[in-house]
């Protein structure tokens, strides 16, 4: 009997021992950010992953030789690619977390006027192969836009700036706001330049294991240099000197607080979804003025709606959200600082689907005007 007990005890201990070892064999990893640079003479590259953080990659004192000026906002400019100087950088995220790269270009104070740049990225396996030499402008007879000009024009439309053909769209330019043609031209260029600056400030995101090619396209802006684009001669504007920083790190989403207030005299059900459709809200959440932000824990996206109540949530900048009110029985609509927003959506009630960038960070639920009239 005693031997049997010993046998059973040994068996139990053995099994528990295996389970204990399994516990340690299945531990979650804890990690941190890591950066590593590998710069070759011609093609720059860097990889980053999860070991430690280091200083950003840097391309120091890069000489950007430009043969002639061009105009990035001109849809009729087909020789843009031929006079642009492109720096191509291979980048790879070796880590297990989503990463971001921010590219900063700094000009030398002694540079000639007019240097502009445009930053964009493509997946490694679809990247256009190119080198950093300046193509010979006089030998080029292409009549179609190149890849870089096309990418810039696509970017401009995302910022509601439609590239104009400066030779043929005088009507369009004339229609721009401003007192005179010159003023309108300057206004248009300023809008396009602002779009370029906003675009260049964006983070380039990398999923774990993802490889991309980052392009920095340099050119001299026609309106800012005292030179014209002349395809028949080797006009040389000169050399520009820049430093390019590539700052890699874990992806850090930016959030803004969205305040939603039910100004209606009755209670309603407000529901919030994150992808603009069905993913119910997750994140920090606060009801009323006195409480602190805490993790949202209710279900079904219900975030409140008591009469007079204000709910604050955190929305990632650029992420569309969807806000609904329960049924059409409630005589309410959504308003932001600009006025009424959103739509009635059948029996689902009032709905808005948009981003915090477009709507602003304050939405009120307001009683419909028709209901507030005296009988």
């Amino acid at each position: 009997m005693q031997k049997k007990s010993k046998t059973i005890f040994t068996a139990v201990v053995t099994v528990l021992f295996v389970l204990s070892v399994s516990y340690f064999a299945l531990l979650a990893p804890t990690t941190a950010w890591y950066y590593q640079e590998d710069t070759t003479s011609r093609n720059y590259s860097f990889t980053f992953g999860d070991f430690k953080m280091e200083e950003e990659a840097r391309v120091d004192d890069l000489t950007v030789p430009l043969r002639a000026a061009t105009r990035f906002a001109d849809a009729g400019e087909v020789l843009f690619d031929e006079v642009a100087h492109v720096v191509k950088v291979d980048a790879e995220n070796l880590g297990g977390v989503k990463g971001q790269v921010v590219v900063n270009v700094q000009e030398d104070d002694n540079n000639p006027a007019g240097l502009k740049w445009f930053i964009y990225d493509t997946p490694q396996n679809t990247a256009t192969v190119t080198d950093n030499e300046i193509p010979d402008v006089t030998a080029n007879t292409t009549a179609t836009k190149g890849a870089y000009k096309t990418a810039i024009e696509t970017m401009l439309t995302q910022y509601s700036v439609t590239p104009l053909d400066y030779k043929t769209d005088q009507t369009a330019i004339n229609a721009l706001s401003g007192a005179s043609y010159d003023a309108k031209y300057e206004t248009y260029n300023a809008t396009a330049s602002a779009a370029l600056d906003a675009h260049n400030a964006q983070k380039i995101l990398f999923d774990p294991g993802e490889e991309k090619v980052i392009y920095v396209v340099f050119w001299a802006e026609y309106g800012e240099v005292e030179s014209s684009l002349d395809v028949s001669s080797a006009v040389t504007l000169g050399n520009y000197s820049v430093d390019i920083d590539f700052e890699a790190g874990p992806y850090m989403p930016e959030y803004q607080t969205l305040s939603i207030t039910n100004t209606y005299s009755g209670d309603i059900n407000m529901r919030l979804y994150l992808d603009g459709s069905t993913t119910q809200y997750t994140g920090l959440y606060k009801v009323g003025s006195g409480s602190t932000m805490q993790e949202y824990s209710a279900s079904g996206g219900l975030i409140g709606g008591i009469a007079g109540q204000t709910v604050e949530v955190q929305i990632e900048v650029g992420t569309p959200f969807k806000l609904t009110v329960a049924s059409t029985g409630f005589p309410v609509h959504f308003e932001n600082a600009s006025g009424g927003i959103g739509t009635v959506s059948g029996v689902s009630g009032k709905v808005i689907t948009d981003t915090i960038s477009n709507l602003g960070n304050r939405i009120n639920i307001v009683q419909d005007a028709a209901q507030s009239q005296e009988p």
Partner: protein
Amino acid sequence: MKRVSILRIVRNVFLIAATLVIAFTAVMLVSGTKAFAVESDSMSPRLHRGDVVFVRRADFDTLAKGDIISAHFPNGDGIFTHRIILVDAEKKQVYTRGDYNLSDDPMPTDASHIIGKLWFSLPYLGFLSLSAQGFTLIYILLGVAIVLIAVRFIFARRRKTDC
């Protein structure tokens, strides 16, 4: 006689060692301590790749500069273990940095993302989970355990029959 004695010693040593491991694991689980395998050298020399850190929940008010904490990344995608360099009591956030890193971590960590404060660490234990052979080891141990238990029962039965 001599062989039986050696076997007995081996078995007893195994039982004692196994019991200690089981007791240690049980204490960790019951106390709510969380364990993570250190994947990087960002906290070198204090923590190295392959170490296992054991963290215990701690109230935000008890955290101080110099404490090592484990926390979720702001986007919830992974866990990092770094040292607190500044506590912002008003915003309920901490600023952190890896001991071996050249710069502070790029963003503060909200109290809601903090898992716990470092209690203690053990070296090398983390390689079990960090290596690709972790699962293989489990299967091997499970197989050996089944075989040993089966052999033990067979021998016990045989002895009974012989008697």
